[in-house]
């Protein structure tokens, strides 16, 4: 009789332990899932921020930056003369570099008007260079795009002034995989 009672107590303890362990295991799994998800999101966010900040640094480089110490601003009149300058092909660590004006952000690439000396500034995209690599991932960031504009008050008189709009600076990075090497 005593033996049976002891067995019952052991059984009781075992059930209790199973329940408690199950309870904490569930909570643990739940918490881990949430934290794991947040960690993953945070990792992606930080990675994105790092690439974007590298583009912001690019916009602030002497080749692009606007007068008047404007941060995150590209001088369109500087950018247009950089088109196809071969000296810059290996200067920046990007496989392609272009500036897309905000008016063309949602246009298909084949519909965009590529800028050159003749049609600037009435164009959509300034292609600084493109190494035309096979696998490329593009990152982009918003920048102010400023240029000197002229407004005529009448047929003879007018003023120069700074006109700024918004553009996206798009930099491509070559993705090298084991097969591509």
């Amino acid at each position, binding site marked *: 009789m005593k033996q*049976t*009672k002891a067995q*019952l107590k052991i*059984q*009781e303890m075992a*059930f*209790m332990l*199973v*329940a*408690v362990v*199950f*309870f904490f295991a*569930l*909570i643990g799994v*739940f918490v881990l899932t*949430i934290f794991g998800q947040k960690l993953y*999101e945070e990792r992606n*966010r930080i990675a*994105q*921020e790092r690439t*974007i*900040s590298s583009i*912001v640094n690019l916009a602030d480089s002497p080749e692009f930056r*606007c007068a008047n110490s*404007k*941060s*995150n*601003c590209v001088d369109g009149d500087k950018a247009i003369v950089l088109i196809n300058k071969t000296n810059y092909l290996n200067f920046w660590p990007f496989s392609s570099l272009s500036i897309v004006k*905000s*008016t063309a*952000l*949602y246009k298909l690439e084949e519909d965009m008007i590529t800028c050159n000396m003749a049609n600037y500034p009435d164009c959509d995209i300034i292609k600084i260079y493109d190494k035309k690599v096979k696998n490329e991932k593009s990152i982009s*960031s*918003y*920048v*102010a795009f*400023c240029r000197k*504009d002229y*407004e005529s*008050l*009448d*047929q*003879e008189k007018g*003023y120069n*002034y*700074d*006109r*700024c*709009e*918004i*553009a996206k600076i798009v930099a491509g990075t070559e993705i090298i995989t084991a097969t591509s090497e």
Partner: protein
Amino acid sequence: MNQRKKAQQEIVGFVLIVLIVTIIGIVLLVMSIGRGDKKVQNSVEISNLLEAGMYYTSDCATNYAPYYLEVQELIKQCEGDRGNNKKKCLSKIKCEEQGKKYTFSFAPTHGPWEHLAPSGNALQPLLVASSLRTGDEIFVSDIDGFVIYKGGSTADCRMGATGANGYGSPAIAGFYNDNKKLISEHNLRDFENGMKVPSGATRLYVYIKEYGQYIKNYNDNTGECSFNYRINRQDITACEEVKDNSEISVCSSLSDTLKRIVEENLRIGGDATNKAYRMNIYYETYSDDESENSQENNTILYLEQGNFENCNSIPGGSHTLTMSDFSSGVIIVELELCAGNKDSSEDS
């Protein structure tokens, strides 16, 4: 035996209760997390958009055209004018206002285009009107002044030569096209009863005319001619459009410009990945006093579009504008998006 059974039942019951409570707890927790307000995720991309947007050139000039204000200047001016709507953007006059009288004056060293170097030494003629169309009617009044030539001859700007030798021209008005080709030439006084713009003419210039060998003597002339001018344009649509837009306040212009920036750069609503946006611009003092920093009191502009419900994520960014070295606070611009699917923040 009965006692044993009872104990076993109690244990099973206890375990069941623990299990049920655990499952219900987890379900409630998941639901509460799923339904709760999403935390705004700081997005560098949106902050960059705001920073770049601060330099965006608006269509509003308050001092003189074309000194159009950047968005950051508009925000500061709107902050100073909060609630009053007194500060207006300047009129953007592309063509003369219908029927408005303008006064012109010019020195008699200005001749017709044909008398500029190398054929003569006249200065370029005075441009009075441009973008003319056939049928527009021009009126001139109050022609006044004299032209004094080096040799002593004088001419009345309205009537012409007054001296005994009869040399000297009155003020002349020439209709030209955009290539500066003369279409027709008239005495300025002929416009007193109105003159229709002839076919092919797009500009009206006024000048003095020298003749013969004297076309190289414009630089010797002294004196001044003045007159009043007005125009009745046949097609005034363009002028009216401009006039309608000219009386907006800086705060309205700020609102329009920011809407344009957001809608041009972030697709909102419809099939777009972003369902809605809200933008808040407010002044924040350096003071710790919460009443002073209440957003309601300090809001400069609040914009929103779409419905901020069931957002998968809320990417947002902010930008801070300093007022001046002596200011006791800063202006904060915040933008939040309601993203409809997971990739929206990247797409944005």
